[in-house]
């Protein structure tokens, strides 16, 4: 986050309250900035309009790169660069290449996916992202609105919404 943003947020005590509130926000056509929770809340993604993550597609591509790297490299070594006969078998002894090909597929897929995951989440060793409230990682469920870019009228609507849907605390924070 580069520029400072003014965030209006409400804290809920239970995930059922959170889900009801998000549905209510949809009917009122309020533009939710983000939702935070201490654990993944099931049923939240579709009503928030989050598309399915494409991380697993990226994982497939990384895995395929691993497969090709391992298989083509061993092929090149044993048929072009330094052909040696082991145990009277052909130079290009495909069954013997399977274990390493499999291992590198798994290795590339997992390392690639984990790096992508932290990159798209904006996380990494030592990264500090703004925290709205310390209890969001404990027992509070949070809905936030971008108050800085909203008109006074809209901010009023947000506040009214948070009060009416049972937020236990409503605060504003500049991050």
């Amino acid at each position, binding site marked *: 986050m580069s520029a400072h943003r003014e965030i209006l947020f409400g804290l809920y005590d239970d995930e059922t309250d959170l*889900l009801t509130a998000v549905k209510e926000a949809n009917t009122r056509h309020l533009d939710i900035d983000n939702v935070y*929770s201490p654990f993944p809340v099931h049923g939240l993604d*579709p009503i928030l309009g989050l598309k399915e993550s494409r991380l697993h597609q990226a994982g497939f591509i990384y895995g395929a790169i691993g497969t090709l790297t391992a298989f083509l490299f061993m092929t090149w070594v044993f048929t072009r660069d330094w052909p040696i006969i082991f145990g009277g078998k052909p130079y290009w002894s495909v069954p013997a290449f399977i274990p390493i090909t499999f291992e590198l597929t798994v290795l590339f897929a997992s390392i690639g996916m984990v790096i992508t995951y932290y990159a798209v989440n904006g*996380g990494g060793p030592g990264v500090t992202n703004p925290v709205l409230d310390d209890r*969001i990682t*404990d027992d509070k469920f949070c809905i936030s609105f971008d108050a800085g870019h909203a008109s006074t009228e809209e901010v009023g609507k947000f506040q009214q919404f948070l009060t009416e849907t049972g937020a236990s605390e409503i605060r504003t924070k500049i991050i």
Partner: protein
Amino acid sequence: MSAVVSPIRDPLITGHKDYHQITEDICAPSERTPSAAWVTAFLIAVGALSVGIFCILWTIWFGIGTWNLNRTIGWGWDITNFVWWIGIGHAGTLISAILLLFRQKWRTGVNRAAEAMTIFAVLCAALFPGIHVGRMWVVFYFFPYPNTRGPLWVNFNSPLLWDLFAISTYFTVSLLFWYTGLVPDFATLRDRASGVRKKFYNFLSFGWTGAAKHWQRFESLSLVLAGICAPLVLSVHTIVSFDFATSVIPGWHTTIFPPYFVAGAIFSGFAMVLTLMIITRKILNLQDYITVEHIDSMNKVILLTGSIVGVAYISELVIAWYSGYIYEQFAFANRVQGVYWWSYFGMMTCNVLSPQIFWFRKFRRNIALTFFMSIFINIGMWFERFVIIPTTLARDYLPSSWSYYVPTWVEVGIFVGTLGIFFTLYLIFCRVAPVVAIAEVKAILKSSGDQYAGQNATGDHTSHDSHSHEEETLVH
């Protein structure tokens, strides 16, 4: 998982916890000063580790001749310990990956510690191939990189090289999987801490905020990592067994080895998980999260894998007899009644006979007995590897080269050292990280907490409506 929880299924979280109480209970051990018990255990572990380092330096300085290996018995305690440790490492990934795919909720109580155990056990295992080659300073020849020796490449057709790839991949992937799960929990610790501890956990928590999109990616990543870890964990011990099975030694050259090794690995891994968890839950006061129900479930896995191992032992004997191949027959007769008969006896007693008591629910739920049994199985599985390795080598084709082997103090010292490494790392882990996965336990609270599930449920069952979307995703 459906929204309806069977009333006969026991709760996995007891004590009527709410979300905040879960955070308090699980964070508590890393937020207080270490207890006298912890300090004592840590000092003992570091002492054992120092013995190991001394013996490793001794080996490097004076050479591999300080071990009692000889021309007949080239693999002794080193490879026995290597296979033992790598086997122990298997339970963590089984719990975190395979049980996640099977949607076993009881995994959430024990997966974090079991995965940590996996990583530390694999580290201990990886030590042995490194030092047993003798000339440790050229051990980098293992790695296929463009070199000035030709470039002469490593032998990609050799199971020993497959093993290198399998173990390094296994270690890396387990570490990534484990750490990814730890990040949200480190964030919980960060948000409760102040001062230097806050900076420390801020570094470890990778800027986690708990945003909905991040949780969605978290679950996607966990699921795919679990999916690829499941075949990985099976492949690792399969490849370890190839080290033996692709040789031409009677007693090793068998097709039963891969499944038999994998079952044995899970068996010994669960035994070690039980040993550690029974102590950990007591000392860190986590009985509400690692319940008797968890121990019961793990004992069922022990019973199953122990019986698979038993069937494998007996099949080996029967097939050796049925093959009509005298060398194979001799190899197995030698195992049962040869010079090392006592290790075969130990293996059979500890691994096959004793776990059968777990057919009874009363024994599966007896904590003291389970602890005793878990130690017993750890010893039995060590004997199994000893039976396979030195016993087989001691009596090979030529009677003139028959030999006997007892380890020197250096070999014993290195084994003690690996126990030291393992427990030192585990004790540090217990201090620094939440031993139970906080976010995962919270996510199953409303379906497995004792106020919602089981006979004494008092909670509001209507709250399960919110879980009706659970079918959409596999995780939890």
